[in-house]
């Protein structure tokens, strides 16, 4: 039961966060007239529904186990405070106040880990980073380099990886990947490095 209360609480907060954000962003979308409902009608309805669902979930969490609030409170208050401070600070120095979202997101993950223990941080970071790495390298460094970088990061995501076995498997995957997608299907993907990636502008 403990886990379920935590899940409902975190889900509720997530829905409120996203719904609230969508309401804020969509505040100036035109509503149109009844004959021609405007851009803002459905987003607004859906956002309110999402926020409402979130509040019901919070309520359910408290009904299941009131103590869950106690577990969540420090992180919740901390993240909210950090988020306000960052947003305010950013607007003071002339930057986007939207930077306040960053501590809110980090805070959400910490809160989720607190109320639903057992997050797989290592695979989470490794797999996400591996995916991002592939995207950031494939059209500049080519398919082979992108595969080596991204798949190695992914393999580092689990302690079960046996590196000699991985090396052999990587070679097979590269042969398979280049063979299927570039030669067989003829996709316009560079195999070898063609340029310095844009995000490494300082190396140019």
């Amino acid at each position: 039961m403990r886990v379920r209360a935590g899940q409902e609480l975190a889900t509720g907060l997530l829905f409120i966060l996203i719904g609230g954000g969508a309401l804020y962003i969509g505040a100036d979308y035109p509503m149109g007239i009844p004959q021609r409902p405007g851009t803002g009608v459905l987003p607004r309805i859906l956002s309110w529904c999402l926020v409402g669902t979130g509040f019901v979930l919070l309520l359910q969490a408290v009904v299941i186990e009131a103590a869950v609030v106690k577990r969540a409170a420090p992180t919740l208050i901390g993240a909210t405070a950090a988020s306000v401070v960052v947003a305010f600070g950013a607007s003071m120095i002339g930057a986007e106040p939207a930077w306040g979202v960053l501590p809110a997101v980090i805070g959400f993950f910490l809160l989720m880990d607190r109320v639903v223990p057992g997050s797989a941080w290592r695979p989470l970071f490794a797999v996400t980073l591996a995916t991002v790495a592939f995207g950031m390298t494939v059209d500049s460094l080519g398919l082979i380099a992108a595969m080596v970088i991204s798949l190695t990061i992914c393999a580092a995501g689990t302690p079960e990886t046996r590196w000699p076995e991985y090396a052999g498997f990587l070679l097979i995957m590269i042969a398979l990947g280049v063979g299927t997608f570039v030669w067989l299907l003829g996709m316009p993907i560079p195999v070898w490095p063609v340029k310095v990636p844009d995000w490494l502008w300082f190396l140019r």
Partner: protein
Amino acid sequence: MELDQVFSNLALGFSVAFSPLNMFWCFMGALIGTAIGVLPGVGPVATMALLLPITYFLTPEGALIMLAGIYYGAQYGGSTTAILVNLPGEASSVVTALDGYAMARQGRAGPALAIAALGSFFAGTVATFAIVLAAPPLTKLAQQFAPADYFSLMTLGLVLAVVMASGSIMKALGMIFLGMLLGLIGTDVNTGNTRFTFGIGDLFDGIGFVIVAMGLFGIGEIIKNLGDPERRDLVSSKISGLMPTREDLRRSFMPVLRGTFLGGLLGILPGGGAVLGSFSSYALEKKLSPTPEKFGTGMIEGVAGPEAANNAAAQTSFIPMLTLGIPSNAVMAMMIGGMMIHGIVPGPQVMEQKPDLFWGMIVSMWLGNAMLVILNLPLIGIWVKMLLVPYRLLAISILFFCCIGVYSLNNLWSEVLFMALFGVLGYVFIRLGCEPAPLLLGYLLGPLMEVYMRRAMLLSRGDAMVFLERPLSLTFLIIAAVALILVILPNIRKAREEAFQE
């Protein structure tokens, strides 16, 4: 409808499905599907998402035939490992493992596998005929739908998806709202305004369906599975003699019939599909049996019923997708994604405008089922060997196929990054116990519902009562409301929770 029309439709279907190339794709789909079904941790939805970009290189018929093959192939593969090594490869074969594995331990794996395969084939054949008979009248009905009716039908579909979802109702509801909101990202086609794009140019066209599906189902699952320590103890049992005894056949006959009927019915409902079919059938057989306490100790009824039910449900869940263009579960959402890649708008017009595609696909499902029976029984040894591939290597290959698949869509690196984002979101949903399937349905239906809402409002000159004045629309809305109220009522909710716990 006249009988000769049924036969001419089927004849057309046979001519398409039996063309060598389409037979090859059907075979490939069934083969890949079986492999996927055997491997735990790799689901049919993720696989179909992975292969969607590749289907771009196929003909529309070939693409859909292959995608469908993956789905029912996965059901077969899932039950094979459920019986042999007590590892249900798919959620729908969880109940098969109960009695199937017990039979295998008694040295009767052969008959269990044979009954599972034959029962599935029988159910698949019946369900194919159900589609043939149900599709034309339903399509005709759908052609009379006004925009308001469509809007209400989609509302009903989403409500039923919430009702059928296992777990919290509020979570499923929220996931639908969230999915619909995500579906609105991009340019509003009616007004040209952009929504939730954050000024990012690559978001003006919205986020591709494949990206969302691969992130949620592919990447999210990799993270989750890598986090779980691997515990796969392979207890291979010797398979001696596939032939079921006369007694086995006699005892399986009625469960297969009941399972086919029950599964076929549940498959049509949105949110239903194979999982619900097999669970309900197991519960039903247990209730009807004179010796319910023996279930779990190797009762052939407990294999025959659920296996027939999950296959029947897998087939009939195509009905709403093919006739109304409404996906009833995540797999059907993938099929719609596959159609849209080829520029086919799913809906009642598909049957008239692309009869070869429509009937070819239906017949191919029957053909694929037959192939599976012939192929699978001799290949069982190979499938069990596949379980020896460790997940640490599987994870790497799935990640690569996700990345290259998304990148190959438009050669946009930014889309790979969006997929990473949805992967994180997918993992969060798994942690929070939120099923991603309702989100996917909302994502597909949200923008469509907006289009129909706008048309309905325009036609009624801004009178929202149009949704209540049209009889069809009103009927759909009433069913939706009743379903929602019923599921919230405490005692039914309790029964529902029990059903999902079985």
